[in-house]
């Protein structure tokens, strides 16, 4: 990025060149933080749906005054200078020619087009966009990818529905299985997947960005969905293998009272949704206080813990099973515990369940009653020798 800025900046300042960015990003606010950190002054567009149908990034393209492509490939200062200074002549473009129309969901020619129109242009259209993408041809890989984007966007919103995050991972996996060369799509899954499959620590830069921005005396852009767990975890390829962590089992007889309401909504997500024998999954278990329950975490009691018992053929290789309490006595934040498990090479195709339970301390605001309760849960691992490889 820095080399592009260096190569283009003099021409932009001279008014001879406009640089615009198109960022492949699920979360627009993360792109805003990135722009603030890097002091990018270009107009930047968000292509969460991969409407540009890119396979990978970065892809710079120089376009002349008529909209004709004149510069492609790696950018050098010389190539940019030649592009800026060369007179390409004028190509007559009729008025209205090659002007992207605003899509109308009522006039959409396909479920995918309808989903795109609703996702992008209807602020209340997220549920309808999901429904539209679900109606697309199951072999329509782009519709599947965009279904995943819409589901993930809904999961990150107050309108989330149970299973949205897992279904997003499933949709992205199905899309990638149909078009395995789409590295934009592959990266979207890898952000939530096992460390062994990750090329880099996707959003680790966020903390560094905040530090730098604060040091400049600015206020960092706030993020609606904080990157957590796998999204900021470093790749493990080449790293020495640590010993498998001890998984707590403080209530083996199941005697603790259950969170029957439940006060805490537990959302497990397994990535990838389909795993080959011999490979790994990463499980992300989110704990979210149900706002209707009007309760808070009791940080003066034992911390949140997760216990899991993998079936034969599945072994825990790393993870965090206890989350230390924050310093303040009460809080209401989203809590995440993640672990990775290896599926033995000899495990046959089929569904496996990883049963478990979580223990946590919560207090209800209404009567001030505090309880240390248990919630049982189950994670599903789908073993499929034909599953797409994430690496």
């Amino acid at each position: 990025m820095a080399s592009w800025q260096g190569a283009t900046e003099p021409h932009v300042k001279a008014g001879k060149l406009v640089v615009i960015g198109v960022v492949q990003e699920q979360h627009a606010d993360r792109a805003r933080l990135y722009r603030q950190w890097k002091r990018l002054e270009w107009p930047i567009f968000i292509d969460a749906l991969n409407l540009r149908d890119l396979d990978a990034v970065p892809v710079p393209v120089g376009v002349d005054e008529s909209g004709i492509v004149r510069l492609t490939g790696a950018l050098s200062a010389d190539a940019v200078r030649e592009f800026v200074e060369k007179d390409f002549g004028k190509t007559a473009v009729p008025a209205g020619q090659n002007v992207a129309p605003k899509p109308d969901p009522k006039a959409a020619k396909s479920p995918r087009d309808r989903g795109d129109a609703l996702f992008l242009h209807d602020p209340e259209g997220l549920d309808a966009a999901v429904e539209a993408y679900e109606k697309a041809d199951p072999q329509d890989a782009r519709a599947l990818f965009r279904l995943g984007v819409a589901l993930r966007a809904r999961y990150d919103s107050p309108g989330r529905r149970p299973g949205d995050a897992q279904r997003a991972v499933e949709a992205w996996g199905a899309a990638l299985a149909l078009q395995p060369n789409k590295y934009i799509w592959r990266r979207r899954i890898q952000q939530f997947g096992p460390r062994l499959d990750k090329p880099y620590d996707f959003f680790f830069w966020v903390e560094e960005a905040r530090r730098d921005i604060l040091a400049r005396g600015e206020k960092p852009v706030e993020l609606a969905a904080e990157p957590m767990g796998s999204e900021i975890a470093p790749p493990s390829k080449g790293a020495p293998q640590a010993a498998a962590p001890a998984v707590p089992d403080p209530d083996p007889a199941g005697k603790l009272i259950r969170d029957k309401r439940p006060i805490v909504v537990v959302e497990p997500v397994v990535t990838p949704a389909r795993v080959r024998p011999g490979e790994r999954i990463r499980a992300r278990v989110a704990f979210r206080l149900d706002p209707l329950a009007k309760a808070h975490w009791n940080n003066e009691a034992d911390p949140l813990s997760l216990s899991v018992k993998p079936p034969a053929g599945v072994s825990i290789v790393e993870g965090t099973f206890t989350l230390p309490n924050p310093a303040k006595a009460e809080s209401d934040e989203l809590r995440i515990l993640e672990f990775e498990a290896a599926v033995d090479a000899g495990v046959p195709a089929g569904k496996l369940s990883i049963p478990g339970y979580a223990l946590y301390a919560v207090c209800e605001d209404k009567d001030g009653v505090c309880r240390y309760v248990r919630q049982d849960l189950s994670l599903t691992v789908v073993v499929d020798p034909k599953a797409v490889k994430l690496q």
Partner: protein
Amino acid sequence: MKTTLLALVLLPALQEKPPVGGAKGQMYPDFLLPNIEGGFGRLSDYRGKKVLVVNFASW
């Protein structure tokens, strides 16, 4: 006739699946996308200027 010929010349770049990297000499397909400020914009808004479109990621 001139308009028809021009449309034919432009047609390959306007098909559903364009060459995203952009083949030299072809019209770069316009797009309408949300911008980072919360509005929308098109590449064609910049017609008349030389534009470097940088497709990138923040991860």
